[in-house]
């Protein structure tokens, strides 16, 4: 963790000097997941109930120029002790100057524009046990300086500690077969998870264009899996290589069209086990507004993804087409349905489908429903181990 003692001292001094706006908020949630297919491994369960606590607190002072932000997360899962986990998503102090910002502490940063996957986004480790969409992230310790100029925003990141990915436990679903074990990570760097990573980004908005160029050097967030023999059989262990990644993300708005592109080039540093490769996702979102008398909006999504690595080593989107839709009911309950279908262009038997829906009950409660379906017949396919893990999930979240 950061030098929190020092940070706390600065914070308290600031608070005493000029108390200002503060708020405590967050949500508590309850979730049930059911997996209708028989598990690939008999150790895995077929349903789970879990509870979430996600409190958030912030304090601003100096007219909002300084702030301290905390966002914590805890999930208890009845089936999988590895999915029961706690994380500090945010724990940082931020100062806003004229044309610049400085943040010190744990934070979450998102980069990118596409929907089916997030190639460019690399600062935070994925919270892999939360959901298969990879959109939940673990908090990353960082020093982040942003310079905001007429010619764009330059972000400089120093990332002093690495967060390793957590994997579902033996009883859990949505995991590799054989099991990937936690706490047996290997690193290319001698400094292991204390290697200091760096990142730079320039992003700019010019009329209908948004563009970002990014560069990262350090420990790859995405592990390579190495089989290891143990007394009880074969397990997979994550290996984290040192990499350099350059990325571009661009978006063009024209009428009801949003055109999107993300592309990366990643290369291994030194004697790396990682492949050098390029990958990209490109597509559009077209919004049909007011499709009926209730003024629903329907956004149509189409994206194509390519990854130059051999199929076994690539992510799930190595040559895939994604079609989807986002239906917004524009009602008082902010009801929304997002759905998508991914098809591997090389293998007609490899596909996945998802649907996420949510609506509000009263003023503070959201009801959510989620469905994932995976289909694969080929052991070389990255989603092969999930082929029996299709699930439905119902959730309730109370916001305060």
């Amino acid at each position, binding site marked *: 963790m950061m030098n929190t003692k020092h940070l706390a001292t600065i914070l308290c001094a600031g608070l005493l000097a000029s108390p200002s706006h503060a708020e405590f908020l967050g949500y508590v949630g309850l979730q049930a997941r059911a997996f209708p297919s028989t598990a690939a491994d008999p150790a895995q369960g077929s349903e789970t109930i879990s509870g979430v606590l996600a409190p958030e607190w912030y304090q601003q002072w100096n007219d909002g120029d300084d702030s301290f932000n905390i966002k914590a997360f805890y999930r208890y899962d009845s089936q999988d002790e590895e999915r029961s986990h706690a994380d500090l998503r945010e724990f940082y102090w931020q100062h806003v100057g004229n044309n610049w910002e400085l943040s010190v502490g744990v934070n*979450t940063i998102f980069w990118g524009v596409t929907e089916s996957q997030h190639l460019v986004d690399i600062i935070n480790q994925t919270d892999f046990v939360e959901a298969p969409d990879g959109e939940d992230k673990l908090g990353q310790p960082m020093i982040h300086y942003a310079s905001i100029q007429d010619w764009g*925003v330059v972000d400089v990141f120093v990332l002093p500690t690495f967060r390793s990915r957590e994997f579902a436990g033996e009883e859990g679903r949505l995991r590799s077969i054989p099991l990937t074990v936690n706490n047996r990570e290997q690193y290319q760097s001698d400094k292991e998870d204390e290697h200091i990573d760096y990142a730079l980004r320039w992003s700019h*908005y010019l009329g209908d264009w948004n563009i970002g160029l990014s560069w990262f050097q350090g420990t790859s967030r995405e592990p390579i899996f190495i089989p290891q023999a143990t007394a009880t059989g074969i397990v997979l262990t994550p290996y984290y290589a040192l990499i350099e990644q350059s990325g571009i993300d661009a978006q063009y708005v024209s009428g*009801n069209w949003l055109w999107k592109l993300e592309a990366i080039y990643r290369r291994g540093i030194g004697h790396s086990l990682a492949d050098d490769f390029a990958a990209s996702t490109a597509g559009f979102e077209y919004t049909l507004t007011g499709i009926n008398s209730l003024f629903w*909006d329907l956004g149509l999504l189409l994206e194509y993804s390519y990854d130059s690595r051999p199929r076994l080593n690539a992510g799930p989107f190595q040559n895939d087409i994604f079609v989807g839709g986002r239906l*917004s009911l524009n*009602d008082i309950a*902010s009801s929304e349905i997002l759905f998508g279908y991914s098809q591997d262009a090389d293998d007609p038997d490899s596909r996945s489908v998802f649907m996420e829906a949510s609506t509000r009950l009263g*003023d503070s409660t959201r009801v959510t429903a989620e469905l994932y379906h995976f289909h694969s017949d080929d052991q070389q396919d990255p989603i092969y181990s999930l082929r029996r893990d299709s699930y439905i999930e119902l959730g309730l979240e109370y916001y305060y």
Partner: protein
Amino acid sequence: MTIKTFTASILCSLSLVLSPSLSADDAQDKGLAIAKEMKSRDRGWVDSSADMEMVLRSRGGRETRREMRILSLEVQNDGDKSMTIFDSPNDVKGTAFLSFTHNNADDDQWLYLPALKRVKRIASKNKSGPFMGSEFSYEDLSSFEVEEYDYRWLRDEELNGELCFVVEIIPRDKYSGYTREIAWIDQEHYRAMKIEFYDRKEAVLKTLTLSDYQLHLDKFWRPAKQTMQNERNGKTTEVLLRNYQFRSGLDEQDFTENSLKRAR
């Protein structure tokens, strides 16, 4: 006044009363002049902020309340900039919306989603959709820019004891949800008192009533209450604006993607 000019002016006012036809061109010129005067009287506020409460009422009278804050920045020679920060309901707390309106060009719009910490660009053609499930659409809430409409003065008429210009306003944007609007603008202060919105079937879709006007900085009139009545579904939305502040030192830096992300 000579007899001749007196007669001329009588004839002239008669022609106004009897056949409300200044020539078509004159009626358009007069309509445009009213719009320009309205805008010019509202120049120079520099920046403003206000707390906004929306009260959504169903036909059966069920109420839902939404709270947000609105920051605005006056831009010379282009449309204004604004940021809306949502305070309720709780699950959208921290969500913020940034909009740059442009004269004669598409607006630029961004939405910040705090759960993903993601700023999303929004296709700006989505103007006619309901705002937060209310009877207001995005375009009803965006800043008024003279260049975005064509005008025609229709008549003078008294409304609630105030003499008003009645002006037809036709959106130039083909993505607008309305074919035309009819506005009652009071002749003393050039404040919109009532606006009727017409749909493609030439029927009144919604009626907006603006009331409880307050004078700020001795120059700027702002309605503390705006009521939108949907004539089709019987629902109403009331927008209440409180704690207006002007010239509090907001600048371009307060209306960027970065400031959107840290809006609280």
